[in-house]
C-alpha cells in the first residue's frame, strides 16, 4: 500500500515537473512570437508580480500569515536594483537628482550598490533580513491573525512615508527611474534589455516556484499547515512556531524583493507608490483568486487579475474599481478556495447542482458490501 502510494506521488511529481517545464518553454519561445512588444512587456511585468504572489501564498496560503505589507519588501528589492542602475548611469559622479536638493556627496548607504554582485545579493537578502527582523518582533509576542495584518499595514505606512519624505536620500516621491540607465552598457529601457529582463523573470519565477514547492512539501510544509491550523497545539508538541514563521516570512520577503527588482526594471523605475496600501492588498487578492495553498493558483491568480485589470481599464477606465471590488467580494464569498481550489474540489458538484442534476448516491444495499466492513471482516478472519 505504501509503495503504491509513493508511486502515485512520483507520477504526480513528474507530471507537475513536466507541466512547469512546458510552461517555461512556452513563455520563453512561443509567447514572444504571439504577443506584441507592449503585451510581452505587460506579461513580463505580471510574471514578476506572480513571483510576489508565490511569496504571499507561502506565508498566507500555507502558514496563515496575512501580510498586508509585502509592498515593503517588493519596493526594497526594487530600490536596491534602481540605485545600482542610477549609479551606473552617474558613472563616477552622483545621480543628478541629488543636485536639485543641493546634496553634493553620496549618502553612505548608496556606496555598496556600486558593485553589481553586491546589488544582486542585496536585492534578495536585504528585504529578507528586514522581513526577518520585523517578523521576529511580531511573532515573538505571539501577535497573530488580524493583529498581524494590521501591524504589517502600519509598517507599510511607516516605510511609505519615510521613502516618500526623503528627497535628499532617495529622491522621495519621484523615486528612481531606470529606463534611461545603463546595464552592461545597454540602455535598460531598450527593447533588447527589456527582453533580457523578460527572460530573467521567467527563469526566476521558475526557480521561485521550485523553492516554494520544496518548502511546502515534506515535513516542513506539513508543519507550516499545522501552524496555520493550530499554532498553540504545536507548542505543546515541542515546536517553537515563532522561529518557523520568522523563517517563512523572511523567505517570502526575499522573494518579494527579487520580484520587485524585476518589476522595477520592466516598468521604467520605482516610486514609493509601490508601498501604497492598496497595492499590497491586491497582492493578497491575486492569491485568493488563484486559490490559496496552491502554488499554481498563486501564479495563475496574479496573471489573471492583472491581465483583467489591464484590459478592463483600457476598455472602460471609469469602472475598473467596480470590477476589482466585486472580485474581492466574489472570491471571498462564492469562491473561497479560489479558481484552482474550486476546480479541484467543488467544480463538478456545484455545476451539477446548478443544472439540478441529482448525483447518484452510492449507498450499499447490504452492509456486507461496504468496503470498510469487508476489510474488517477479513481482519477478523485473519485473527
Amino acid at each position, binding site marked *: 500500500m505504501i509503495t503504491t502510494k509513493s508511486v502515485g506521488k512520483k507520477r504526480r511529481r513528474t507530471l507537475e515537473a513536466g507541466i512547469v517545464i512546458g510552461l517555461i518553454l512556452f513563455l520563453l519561445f512561443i509567447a*514572444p512570437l504571439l504577443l*506584441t512588444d507592449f503585451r510581452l512587456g505587460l506579461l513580463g511585468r505580471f510574471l514578476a508580480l506572480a513571483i510576489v504572489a508565490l511569496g504571499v501564498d507561502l506565508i498566507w496560503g500555507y502558514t496563515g500569515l496575512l501580510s498586508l505589507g509585502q509592498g515593503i519588501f517588493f519596493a526594497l528589492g526594487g530600490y536596491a536594483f534602481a540605485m545600482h542602475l542610477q549609479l551606473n548611469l552617474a558613472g563616477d559622479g552622483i545621480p543628478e537628482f541629488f543636485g536639485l536638493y543641493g546634496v553634493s556627496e553620496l549618502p553612505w548607504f548608496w556606496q555598496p550598490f556600486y558593485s553589481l554582485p553586491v546589488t544582486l545579493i542585496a536585492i534578495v537578502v536585504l528585504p529578507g533580513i528586514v522581513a526577518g527582523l520585523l517578523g521576529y518582533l511580531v511573532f515573538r509576542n505571539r501577535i497573530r491573525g488580524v493583529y498581524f495584518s494590521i501591524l504589517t499595514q502600519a509598517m507599510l505606512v511607516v516605510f511609505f512615508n519615510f521613502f516618500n519624505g526623503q528627497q535628499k536620500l532617495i529622491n522621495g516621491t519621484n523615486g528612481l527611474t531606470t529606463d534611461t540607465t545603463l546595464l*552592461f552598457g*545597454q540602455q535598460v529601457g*531598450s527593447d533588447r534589455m527589456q*527582453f533580457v529582463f523578460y527572460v530573467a523573470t521567467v527563469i526566476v519565477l521558475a526557480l521561485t516556484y521550485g523553492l516554494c514547492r520544496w518548502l511546502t512539501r515534506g515535513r516542513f510544509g506539513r508543519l507550516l499547515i499545522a501552524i496555520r491550523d493550530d499554532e498553540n497545539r504545536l507548542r505543546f508538541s515541542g515546536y517553537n512556531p515563532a522561529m518557523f514563521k520568522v523563517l517563512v516570512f523572511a523567505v517570502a520577503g526575499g522573494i518579494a524583493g527579487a520580484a520587485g527588482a524585476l518589476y522595477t526594471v520592466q516598468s521604467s523605475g520605482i*516610486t514609493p507608490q509601490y508601498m501604497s496600501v492598496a497595492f499590497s492588498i491586491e497582492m493578497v487578492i491575486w492569491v485568493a483568486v488563484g486559490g490559496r495553498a496552491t502554488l499554481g493558483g498563486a501564479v495563475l491568480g496574479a496573471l489573471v487579475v492583472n491581465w483583467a485589470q489591464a484590459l478592463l481599464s483600457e476598455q472602460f477606465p471609469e469602472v475598473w474599481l467596480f470590477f476589482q471590488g466585486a472580485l474581492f467580494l466574489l472570491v471571498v464569498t462564492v469562491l473561497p478556495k479560489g479558481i484552482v481550489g474550486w476546480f479541484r474540489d467543488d467544480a463538478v458538484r456545484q455545476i451539477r447542482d446548478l443544472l439540478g442534476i441529482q448525483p447518484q448516491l452510492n449507498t450499499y444495499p447490504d452492509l456486507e458490501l461496504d468496503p470498510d466492513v469487508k476489510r474488517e471482516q477479513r481482519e477478523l478472519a485473519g485473527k
Partner: protein
Amino acid sequence: MTRINRRKFLVYGSTAVGTSILLKACGGTSDTTGGTTAPAEGEATTASAGGGGDTIKVGILHSLSGTMAISETTVVDAEELAIKEINAAGGVLGKQIEIVKEDGASDWDTFAEKAEKLIDQDQVSVVFGCWTSASRKKVLPVFEAKDHMLWYPVQYEGQECSKNIFYTGAAPNQQIEPAVDWLLENKGKDFFLVGSDYVFPRTANNIIKEQLKAKGGTTVGEDYLPLGNTEVTPIITKIKAALPDGGVIFNSLNGDSNVAFFKQLKGAGMGPDKYPVMSVSIAEEEVRTIGPDFLKGHYAAWNYFQTVESPENEKWVSDFKAEYGDDRVTNDPMEAAYIMVYLWSQAVEKAGSTDIAAVREAAYGQTFDAPGGTVTMNPNHHISKIVRIGEIREDGLFDIVSATDGPVTPIPWNQFVEDTKGYACDWSDPAKGGKYKEA
C-alpha cells in the same frame, strides 16, 4: 569584474538575438540592433500610424480615477473641447482627430504602462497628458526611450527640458518667481513655505529659498504634508510660532490638503490681513471645492484666470460653459491644455505629417492667440506667456491685482539654484540640446 560583465552580456545578448531572429521571421517589430537606437524604429512606426488611415490618433493620458482625478478630469474636458473644435473646423491635414483615452488612475506606474500602450499598441501620433510631476517623471523615460512626444499642460518646478516633452504650463520663472517678487514688494519679507510631500512643492520651495536668499527675504520655516493628509494643526502651530506677528505663507499644497489647510487656518483666526497666503496650485476649480469663504483675500499666481478680459477668453469661457454646463469654471491648466492641442495641430499642419521629428521642428515658434493672451512655443519646449497674480473674491473668481506687460520667456533651468545656474535648453540646435552652458 569587467570580464564577468562581458560574459554575462554575451549570454544575455545571444538569447536576445536568438529569439529576435524568430521574431523577425514572423514579422515581429522587435529591435535586433538593440540598445539606444530604439528611436529610429519608434519614429517609423508612429509616422506610419499618423499617415495611415483616415484619422489621426492622439492619446489622452490623465487620471480619471483616484486622488488626482479631481484636477485632471477638468484638463481632459479642455483637451476634448479643443479637439472637438479642430475636428469641426475640418481636422488636421484634412483628417479627423481620433481620441484614445487612458486612465492613469493617480498611480505613476499605471501612467508609464498606459504611455507604452498608447505608443506601441494604439500607435498614436502624440500624447497629451499628466498632471503631477511624479507622473511626468515616470513617463518621461518611456517617451525618451521610444522617442515619442508628450504635451504637458501643468505648471511645474522646471529643472527639466526633455526633447520629447512640450511644456505648456508655467516654468518657475513664469509663476513662482514673479509671485515671490510680488510678495516681497507688497506683502513682506518673512516667508513660511507649506507644501505637499512630493516633488513639485519640494523643488519649488528649494527654488524659493534660493530666490529669497538672493533678494533679501528670509525663510522662517517650511513643512510638508503627506498627500491626502488633513491633520494640519502642527503646521499651523509652527507658522504661529515662526511668524508671531504675521508674515507671508507660500502654499504649494496639492489637492485635499488645501481644503484642510485653509479651513483650519481660518479656524485658528489667521486671516489674509496678517497671514496672506500665496498659492500656486489653487485655481478656480479648487476654490470652488474649498469654499470661497475660507479663501477670500488670499492670492494665487497663474498665467490665466477666468476673469481675464479679452475677446478670446470670453469666447472660450462661453464655449466651455456651453459644452460642459454653466456651473463649470475655466482655469490655468485647462487653458494650457486647450493651448497645447492647438499648438500641436498647427505644428502638424506646418510639418505636413505627424512624423515626430518633423512636428517637433515645426512646433518651434508656433504662436496662438490663447484666452490668456498670445503665446509662443520656444525652442526650449516651453511657451512664453503673461504672468498674473489674482486675489480671491467672494464668488470664487479672481481679481487680477498684477500682470506682466508682455509674455515672459520661460527659463526651464533655474538660475537661482547653484547646480543649474547659467544653463539653458535649445532643441532647435543639435549642438545645444537639453542642458547647455550659456555663453
